[in-house]
């Protein structure tokens, strides 16, 4: 005990209710027994910030009340409020919970009963809102953007897609940070697997791995609008029909658009042609990029080809049914619909370096030479990316490193 420093006693209250009589550890206000479990007594949040947070909470509650004058929450009690907060945080990790509780605790330290009641109202309303999901679909109380994107449906389907991404196909994604955080960009990818799961996985890759969690607005073929259920679900997930007007409009709204130029040719490939890129159409995607100055980001998806081992493509049966192709695999159509279950190959999605198109100017979209040149450039880049990945891949179903 040096005479220069003043030892102070620990400021914690012991279990029996009395003041702790031990001396504190240097630099803190607690002794060695109480220090590990104590929340730092000095909040980093200043008075004004606390007041600002409270004001925001009050305003939010007022707004929610104004929108839903008919809603009455169950009767209020502090204990029920605490329990509701605990329940709402059940799905969160330890660090997330602490990150939420610390500022909330300091903000609520001096708050009045009215704000607490407001928080009670809001939490109950949120729970009720989620429970009412189906009811609200029937009464029309939900919002979509002008394209038909419905965020609640996206959030609903996201766990399923994430499970496919993480567990079933164990997708490894590289280069996703090359996608800009905001602003227009055009993703161009190879297309394979008889069913467009690769579009779903590319979308999931960007949404889960990109720091800005951007939604990919893919352009789908005109096969979808005439299929029941798929026609409106793809729209609600933010995708649009593959027309030039749609692509240009989306890009001008600074969205992240994905195009799969191989189209049906790519997806209907038999196993022997796997990873050999089909023709990239007439370069329509290049025109999209040139008209809007959006950078082209090449994407290579490896692993989708092996989801279905297509031995033969029966065009005659396809014509009868009205589909663009009818694949024959070892399990389809022999096992019926069970044959449609994709194989759990290991996937790799590589995002390449963006190819800027701003400097060419809008009118260059009519320059057929430039369009073909860029189209070939992108196709070759993707082919190279595929080859690089295939060379490094040693196993179809397991990790190669």
């Amino acid at each position, binding site marked *: 005990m040096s005479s220069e420093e003043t030892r102070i006693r620990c400021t914690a209250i012991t279990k029996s209710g009395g003041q702790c009589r031990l001396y504190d550890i240097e630099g803190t206000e607690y002794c060695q027994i109480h220090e590990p479990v104590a929340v730092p007594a000095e909040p980093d949040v200043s008075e004004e910030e606390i007041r600002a947070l409270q004001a925001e909470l009050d305003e939010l509650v007022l707004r929610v009340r104004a929108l839903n004058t008919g809603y009455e929450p169950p009767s209020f009690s502090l204990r029920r409020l605490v329990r509701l907060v605990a329940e709402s945080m059940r799905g969160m990790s330890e660090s997330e919970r602490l990150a939420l509780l610390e500022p909330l605790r300091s903000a609520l330290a001096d708050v009045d009963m009215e704000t607490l009641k407001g928080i009670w109202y809001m939490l109950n309303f949120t729970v009720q809102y989620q429970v009412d999901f189906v009811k609200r679909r029937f009464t*029309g109380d939900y919002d979509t953007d*002008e394209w038909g994107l419905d965020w609640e449906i996206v959030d609903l389907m996201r766990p399923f897609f994430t499970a496919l991404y993480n567990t079933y196909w164990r997708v490894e994604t590289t280069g996703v940070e090359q996608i800009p955080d905001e602003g227009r960009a055009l993703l161009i990818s190879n297309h394979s697997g008889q069913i467009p799961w690769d579009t779903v996985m590319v979308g999931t890759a960007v949404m889960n791995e990109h720091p800005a969690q951007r939604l990919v607005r893919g352009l789908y073929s005109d096969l979808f*609008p005439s*299929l*029941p259920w798929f026609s409106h679900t793809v729209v*609600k997930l933010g995708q*649009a029909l593959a027309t030039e*007007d749609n692509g240009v*409009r989306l890009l001008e709204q600074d969205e992240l658009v994905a195009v799969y130029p191989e189209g049906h040719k790519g997806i209907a490939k038999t196993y022997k042609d796997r990873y050999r890129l089909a023709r990239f159409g007439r370069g329509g995607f290049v025109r999209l990029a040139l008209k809007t100055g959006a950078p082209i980001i090449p994407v290579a998806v490896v692993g989708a080809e092996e989801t279905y081992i297509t031995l033969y493509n029966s065009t005659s049966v396809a014509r009868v049914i009205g589909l663009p192709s009818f694949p024959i695999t070892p399990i389809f159509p022999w096992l019926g619909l069970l044959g449609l279950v994709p194989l759990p190959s290991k996937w790799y999605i590589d995002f390449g370096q963006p190819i800027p198109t701003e400097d060419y100017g809008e009118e260059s979209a009519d320059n057929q030479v430039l369009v073909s040149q860029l189209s070939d450039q992108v196709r070759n880049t993707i082919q190279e990316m595929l080859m690089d990945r295939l060379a490094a891949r040693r196993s179809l179903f397991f990790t190669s490193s």
Partner: protein
Amino acid sequence: MEEQKTVLVTGAAGYWGHRVARRLASEVGTRVIALDAEEPAEEIEDIDFIQADVRNPLVAKLIETEGVEAVCHLAFRPDVRRSEAAFDLNVMGTMKVLGACAEAGVGKVVLKSSTAVYGARRSNSAFLREDRPLQGSRRYGYTRDWVEVEAFCNGFRHQAPDVELTILRFPGIIGPTADTPMTRFLGELSTPSLLGFDPMMQLIHEDDVVEALVHALGSDASGAFNVAAEDVLPLNKIRGLAGKPPLLILHPFAYWGAGFLRGAGLGLGSFMPIELDYLRYSWVGDLMRMQQELGFAPRHTAEEALREFAEIQRTRRFRLESTALGRGEQRMRDIIEQRRRAREQQASIETGSEEGYEDE
């Protein structure tokens, strides 16, 4: 002393003609001549009503002698079943009116059409611009006639470039008093939708239709314009907001049912006022021209219009003579507005200030 602008409104006994005529009559400086083969059910004050068929060849002479400067041609029979009589009035009638306008040197003609003329196809872009080729279905009478009229107008613009021809294409129209395919679809329980399809759709409120037509008469813009409320909603949401319980039929059965009804000669109009394709694919119009060139902004959003519609639907069975009351309410509204403007004008004349033209 202001100049009187003479406007001819055809189809004045029908719903739209009647409303546009009444709306124009309340504008200061506009003299309205109303034309129709039948007498209107209610009289409109301050309007010159002439009972004549638009197909009468002497209409051109009438236009000339009365000094008509603008024509709003609303004589149209929107039947579901195709018929010669409807075709004759809709298409031939329009052709004759346009011919008369060209002959008499009318400056401006405004027609009411529909975004249905684009056709509802699976290859449609999400927002259809006005310059695309019109591929509307030919099965229903009204779409077929609109497509024919628009095709004729295309040629007409080249023949008579001096006539400013404005065509306003409206999507489904809803409102408290109008009787349109959309109100019939949303108002009846027995009108089915297709299971598994939920296209994005546009709507417009009936008041905005009247305002748009009047606005077009006074504006310099010419050509075709999509006019709709700015919010685009999925069909499911439209049904939900309108309070219509969904009657969903698997699409092959729905098409077979429609084919059967048509083949048996039974009226399709009550079960399927809107053709099935238009409930399956999108036919949403791009509104850029309306906003930038026509300079018109609808006052009601589709959501507001639907909630209003739902309220009226819920109380409909408790109302007596709802249509007449609705019209009476509309008329009273216009009279009050008219008197207010007359008072304002009187006040400004008395204070000696310069009275400009009425602004909307």
